[in-house]
C-alpha cells in the first residue's frame, strides 16, 4: 500500500502542478476490494473543473503502474479543508510564487463573529511569496482558480496568488 501512496504522490495537481495530489490532501483513502483498487477522492470546491481531470489522472497513473482494476469513489464528508495541505505542499507553493493559506482565517458560517467580520475590517496579512513583505493588498476574492485569491505586494509591486484558507 505504501507503494500505491508513493505512486499517487507523483501525480501533479492539474492546475497547480507544483503540488501533488497527496500534498493537496484530496485523496482520502486507498483500499483493496477483492481484486479492485478503490481510491476515495474528495473534491476541493464543488464546481472545481479540475476534479474530473484529477480522477482521470489517478486512473491513468495506476493503470500505467500495472494495477489492472481501479475504481474511484467520491466522498463529500468531511469536506476538504486547506488544513489537509501538507507542510511540504505549503513550502512548494511559496517557492512557486503562491502564498500558502493563513490558517484560521476561513469564512466561518456560524452566526458568532459573522456580523463583526462583514461590517468591520476582519482582514489579515498575507506575506508576499516573492519578497516576504507583509505590506500587501487584496485585489480580488478570487484568482485564477476557485482555491485562490488575487493579491498585490506594495513593496516589490508584484501581483501574486494567495491560496485561500478553506
Amino acid at each position, binding site marked *: 500500500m505504501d507503494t500505491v501512496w508513493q505512486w499517487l504522490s507523483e501525480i501533479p495537481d492539474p492546475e497547480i502542478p507544483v503540488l501533488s495530489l497527496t500534498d493537496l490532501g484530496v485523496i482520502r483513502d486507498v483500499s483493496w476490494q477483492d481484486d479492485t483498487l478503490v481510491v476515495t477522492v474528495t473534491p476541493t470546491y*464543488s*464546481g472545481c473543473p479540475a476534479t474530473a481531470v484529477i480522477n482521470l489522472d489517478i486512473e491513468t497513473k495506476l493503470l500505467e503502474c500495472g494495477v489492472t482494476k481501479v475504481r474511484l469513489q467520491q466522498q463529500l*464528508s468531511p*469536506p476538504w479543508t486547506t488544513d489537509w495541505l501538507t507542510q511540504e505542499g505549503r513550502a512548494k507553493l511559496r517557492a512557486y510564487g503562491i502564498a500558502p493559506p493563513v490558517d484560521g482565517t476561513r*469564512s466561518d458560517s456560524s452566526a458568532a463573529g459573522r456580523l463583526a467580520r*462583514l461590517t468591520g475590517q476582519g482582514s489579515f496579512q498575507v506575506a508576499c511569496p516573492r519578497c516576504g513583505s507583509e505590506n500587501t493588498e487584496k485585489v480580488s476574492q478570487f484568482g485564477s482558480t476557485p482555491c485562490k485569491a488575487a493579491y498585490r505586494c506594495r513593496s516589490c509591486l508584484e501581483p501574486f496568488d494567495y491560496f485561500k484558507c478553506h
Partner: protein
Amino acid sequence: MTSKDKLVARDTLFEWLLRRGDTALVLGHRVSEWCGHSPVLEEDIALANVALDLIGQARMWLGLAGEVEGKGRGENELAYLRDAWDFRNFLLAEQPNGDFGQTLMRQFLIDAYQVPLLEALKSSKDERIAAIAAKAGKEVAYHLDRSADLVIRLGDGTEESHRRMQQALDALWSYTGEMFASDAIDTAMAEAGLAPDAASLKAEWKETVEAVLDEATLTLPESDFAHMGGLTGRHSEHLGHMLAEMQFLQRAYPGATW
C-alpha cells in the same frame, strides 16, 4: 439510504431537494451570464468562480434529487430537460442581472439566507443532505463575505453607486419574502428533523441584512409584500428566457455529449 427516504414521503423530499438544486442552478447560471462582460477583469473572474461553485452545488443537490426520485433521471436530465413550471427555485434567483450592483445585491440577499440554512442542514438526519450542506456551506460563507463587502463599498461609495444600490434593493426586496414562507413541504421536512423550517431562518437573515445595509448607508424598504410562486412552479417570465438559452443544446441535439 432507503431507510432515510422514509422519514418523509419520497415526493416531499424530492420537491425539497429541487428547491435547493434549482435555486443554486438558476442563480449560478444567472451569475455566469456575466462571464466576459464584467466591469473589470478581477470581477469577471470572481463572478465566474461564484457561478462555478453554485453550479457544482446544484449538481450535488440535483444528483441526490434524481436518486431519491428513483425514475432514472440524473442531474443532467433534471437541469436540461424540465420546463419552467417544473423548476422550484426562488423567484429572487431568476431575476435578471440588471447592472453589476443589482447582481451583487441579489447575491447578497440570497447568500445571507443560504448561510444559516446550510449551517442548520449540517445536522440534518439525512447524512446525504448534511454532507452536501457541509461542503456547500463553506463556499457560500465565502460568497457572503464578498457580496456583503461589495454591497457596503458600493452602497457607501459614490452618489451614483449609492443610488444604484438603493434602486437594486428596492427592486429586489419584494422577492425576499418567499424564502421564509413555510409550506407543507417545509413543515414535513422540519418535523422529520431533515431541515429547518424556512420561517425560522428569518431572524438571522434579517440581522445580517440590517447590519450590512446599515453599514452600506442603504434604507431598508418597509413593505412586507412578497411575490410568491417559484416553489410551486409559477415563475416570472424571466425564467423561460433563461432556460431557452441554458437548455438550447440539449433541446436541439438531445443527448449530445463531448
